[in-house]
């Protein structure tokens, strides 16, 4: 709603939002030049969480980079692991001598954990957005539900945040005995809980009006500015790598892709903050469905429950294989959109170049474009609606 917004009086003040501001989700600094309550210009300042992940990738041997991918995006570490491992596998397979395949059970488990992690990541996203807009309760309920996923992951791989579970060639452990039942139970109760969550915040008129028509990004703009994932789909672009460039077993699952359709009704427009938010919620529902579908497809367990699935990783440490020379580019659909790995190998044990392209980076790139002429209070809603995770921007 930029109606009264565009009448500058000439007097501006500079507000330094962050790096330690309650709403900047980590350490992001946004220098806002405002005309009263209206944002005139906005300059994001990055790098407070720069940890040289790409440089590290050139220094450690290439299977040892997997734990670092956890740290690229700690909200959806499973997806981050998966993205790198798929890229590494593709690099391996580009050498005709390496003819390994990921076992089917491993593929299923990968998709299962990736979708579970998508649920937990989107829960953080929608909860944090609600909190930025001023509703504190939904955030804590989102986090409480996320604990369910974390418990499953902790039993699965021993950690709650940095999983290091997906490995090159498979996954680190098979599912534990009660995993399937527990996941089913979690999904059932979570689905019920989501209804209450939505009644509490999604359909709330105040919340809807706060987000409707705020920071509208048209489809063409979204593509040109490189938005990916739910941000892109929120703008009405019907594109999802899981469906359009399927990897793993996604091709068999028939992913249904929600896109933004001006969910806020006559007050909203396609591609506004509310659309991005609702698309995330619909993706949660889709992930629930996918998890159930994967559980149906899951082939029976191997005999050894605690052993890794997929033989390649088992050799790590004894004889780290050298990747073949060459380069590879793989992109996967992480909760924050395309996570693309561009790997260049010079035939040594360490990769020559590890490039990680993340969704939050381009989402942050559009901030200064969409944040012109909105209200100061909307800035936080916009940050929330793009669902940025700061380490993913800075890496």
């Amino acid at each position, binding site marked *: 709603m930029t109606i009264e917004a565009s009448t500058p009086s000439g007097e501006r003040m500079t507000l330094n939002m962050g790096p330690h501001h309650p709403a900047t989700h980590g350490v992001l600094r946004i220098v806002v030049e405002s005309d009263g309550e209206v944002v005139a210009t906005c300059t994001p300042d990055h790098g407070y969480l720069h940890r040289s992940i790409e440089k590290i990738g050139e220094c450690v041997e290439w299977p*040892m980079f997997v734990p670092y991918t956890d740290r690229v995006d700690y909200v959806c570490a499973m997806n981050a692991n998966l993205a790198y491992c798929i890229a590494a596998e593709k690099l391996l397979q580009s050498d005709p001598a390496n003819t390994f395949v990921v076992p089917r059970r491993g593929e299923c488990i990968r998709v299962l954990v990736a979708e579970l992690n998508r649920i937990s990541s989107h829960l953080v996203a929608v909860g944090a957005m609600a909190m930025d807009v001023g509703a504190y309760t939904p955030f804590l309920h989102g986090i409480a539900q996320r604990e369910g996923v974390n418990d499953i992951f902790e039993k699965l791989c021993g950690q709650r945040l940095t999983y*290091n579970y997906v490995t090159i060639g498979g996954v680190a452990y098979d599912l534990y005995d009660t995993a399937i039942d527990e996941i089913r139970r979690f999904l059932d109760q979570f689905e019920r809980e989501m209804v209450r969550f939505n009644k509490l915040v999604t359909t709330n*008129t105040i919340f809807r009006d706060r987000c409707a028509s705020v920071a509208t990004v048209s489809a063409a703009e979204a593509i040109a500015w490189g938005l990916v994932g739910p941000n892109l789909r929120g703008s009405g672009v019907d594109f999802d790598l899981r469906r359009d460039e399927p990897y793993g077993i996604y091709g068999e699952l028939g992913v249904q892709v929600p896109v933004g359709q001006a969910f806020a009704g006559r007050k909203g427009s396609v591609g506004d903050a509310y659309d991005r938010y609702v698309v995330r919620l619909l993706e949660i529902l889709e992930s629930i469905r996918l998890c159930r579908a994967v559980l149906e497809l899951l082939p*029976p367990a191997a*005999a050894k429950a*605690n052993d890794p699935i997929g033989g390649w990783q088992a050799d790590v*440490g004894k004889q780290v294989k050298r990747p073949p020379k060459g380069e590879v580019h793989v992109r996967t659909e992480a909760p924050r959109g395309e996570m693309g790995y561009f790997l260049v190998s010079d035939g040594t044990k360490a990769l020559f170049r590890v490039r990680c392209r993340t969704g939050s980076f381009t989402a942050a790139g559009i901030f200064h474009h969409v944040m012109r002429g909105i209200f100061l209070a909307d800035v936080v809603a916009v940050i929330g609606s793009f669902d940025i995770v700061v380490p993913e921007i800075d890496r």
Partner: protein
Amino acid sequence: MILAWIHDVVEAVQSCVSGMRTTGRFLVENLRGEGGAMSATREYPEQPAEVVGDRQRGHLVNDADRCIVCHACDTVCPVDCFKMDGERDGDNKMRASRFDIDLSKCIYCGLCVRACPTDSLSMTRTFEMDPQHEGKRFLFRRNSKQVDVRFDAPEMERLHALAAQPREALSAEDRAWLDARIDDRGQHLIGIYGLGFFTPEQKAEADAAREAKKKAKDAAAAAAKAKAAAAAAAAAPKPASVPAPAAGATPAAPAAPPAAPGAPPATKSGPDAASGGSPTP
């Protein structure tokens, strides 16, 4: 326009009332303790976090008796947190004369545990790490210069004996000796070899887990053998797959009885031992 206005007002009231009904229900549920509502948070020091699953990546410890100093862990470690030296013992076997784990570097990724050929490295299921308290005997803060100071076995014993006492009680000589080796303000948190287990119970637990793993492996191998041997393809997978995961999932179960009596008196391992002894539901 008036109708739109009225609709907006009515909708606002409806949605707010629906939201308040939801929170009201949350309130009532929480007051009644329904639906696991109260368990969403935990009052941490009094109610320690429960350890779930048997794959917990708590502390990284090394059972020096089994270590053959093959440097597999060192090779695979992404952060270089190991320092180790080996020497041949009487049987011409490699033994670790030093195995320091810099826990201030360790990122608990577990790659070394996967790489270890003798299962001497393992991760405990407890994760409390406070060198001022229960970790005191086994974790030492050292500065970078002290990190390179090695200990032989008698020195280790002396170190542990001294570190367990309050500083004031030490003689001046002991204090100086200790200060040269550990530094309470040092930045490296080192877990030192051999005695890496914090408690005897942990050692027992790790042994049990290893035993169970071995058993599961054997069982699986036997099952595979049986499967290969048995001509009846339909009957073979069922008995083969049933016992093996059961053994794998409850690693402490077969070996629990000897460990369990010792566990309850130890304050911190109480819940730990309990959840380890009973198979996960």
